[in-house]
């Protein structure tokens, strides 16, 4: 009933729907009251007065229409023929560069280059890996090769030699 009542009251319901609503209303006092209230409500809503556009409405609208930018073609956006030529040349050049065939190296050349780069990388890595050890004093002081070096003669060493004799 909810969706049909409004349509019935405004006279837009189809004949079959209208008859169905009328049949329901004849047996339902609640809906009958609601229908009467809706009719009264619609009459009351008609008391809302109409307002009218201000006298300047049309003039303001015409001014807004006149301020609209005219539709322009693509080439009209170009400020000068020189710029248009430059843009065209740039587009053609870009297209030509992107469509030009690229030089592709043979697989053997590529594999040789890869090998060379691997060797260089290993060397670099080895040096970097040993850096902390070379900077460690304990490691260097206990390094065998350093202990075999002749001890420089000092005063304390000479006294010790005399005592042993």
């Amino acid at each position, binding site marked *: 009933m909810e969706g049909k009542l409004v349509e019935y009251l405004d006279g837009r319901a189809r004949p079959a729907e209208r008859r169905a609503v009328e049949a329901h209303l004849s047996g339902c006092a609640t809906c009958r009251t609601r229908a009467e209230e809706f009719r009264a409500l619609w009459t*009351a809503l008609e008391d809302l*007065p109409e*307002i009218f556009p201000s006298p300047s409405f049309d003039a303001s609208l015409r001014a807004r229409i006149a301020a609209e930018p005219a539709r322009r073609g693509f080439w009209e956006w170009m400020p000068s023929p020189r710029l248009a030529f430059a843009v065209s040349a740039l587009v053609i050049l870009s297209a030509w560069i992107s469509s030009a065939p690229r030089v592709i190296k043979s697989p053997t050349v590529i594999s040789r280059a890869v090998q060379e780069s691997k060797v260089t990388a290993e060397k670099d890595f080895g040096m970097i890996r040993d850096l902390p050890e070379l900077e460690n004093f304990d490691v260097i002081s206990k390094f065998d090769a350093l202990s075999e070096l002749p001890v420089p003669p000092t005063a304390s060493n000479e006294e010790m030699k005399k005592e042993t004799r």
Partner: protein
Amino acid sequence: MARTDVQLMLDVKAGDEKSFELLLRKYRTPLVNFLYRMVRNTAIAEDLAQEVFLRVYRARQEYAPSAKFTTWMFRIATNLALNSVRDNRHRQMEISMDQTIDTGEDEIQALEVPDRAPSVEQKLVARSRAELIMKAIHSLPEKQRAAVLLHKYQELDYDEIARVLECSESALKSLLFRAYETLRVQLAPLVNNSVKVS
């Protein structure tokens, strides 16, 4: 023989500015009223109505008569009104409008009630009724408000209103019932008097 709105719009598309003038003359008052009742501010309503015509004019080259002209026009108007209502830019103006409604001064001037009532007392009664109705309509949720305005005041067909509000016809009928039910409660003093009298 008078040209239909669609024919007028097709003539505008073909470059006939006078046809646009005819559409403007025909629809400026209904549009301003619809928008005023949506946004409850005459200045904003006029601005939005001009925006509707501006958009119609801008779209003239792409116009294709797939629906009634009024459906298209009120769809633009409804979207603009809903955006305006939701837009915080107009919040300040709405607050000032609410304040004037409480005092009932500027609102009465804006409504421009026709001078039907001879006495001052009858004029005041008519104005207070109008304000009560306006307040009740404005208290509806935006979509219900638009549905009532398009149904009751613009008398658009159900299929047109459904297309404007982008819902099904059955959903629209339920929406309208709920809106009128709210109005019936809010305007009970006006409604009950009429029912008792009848």
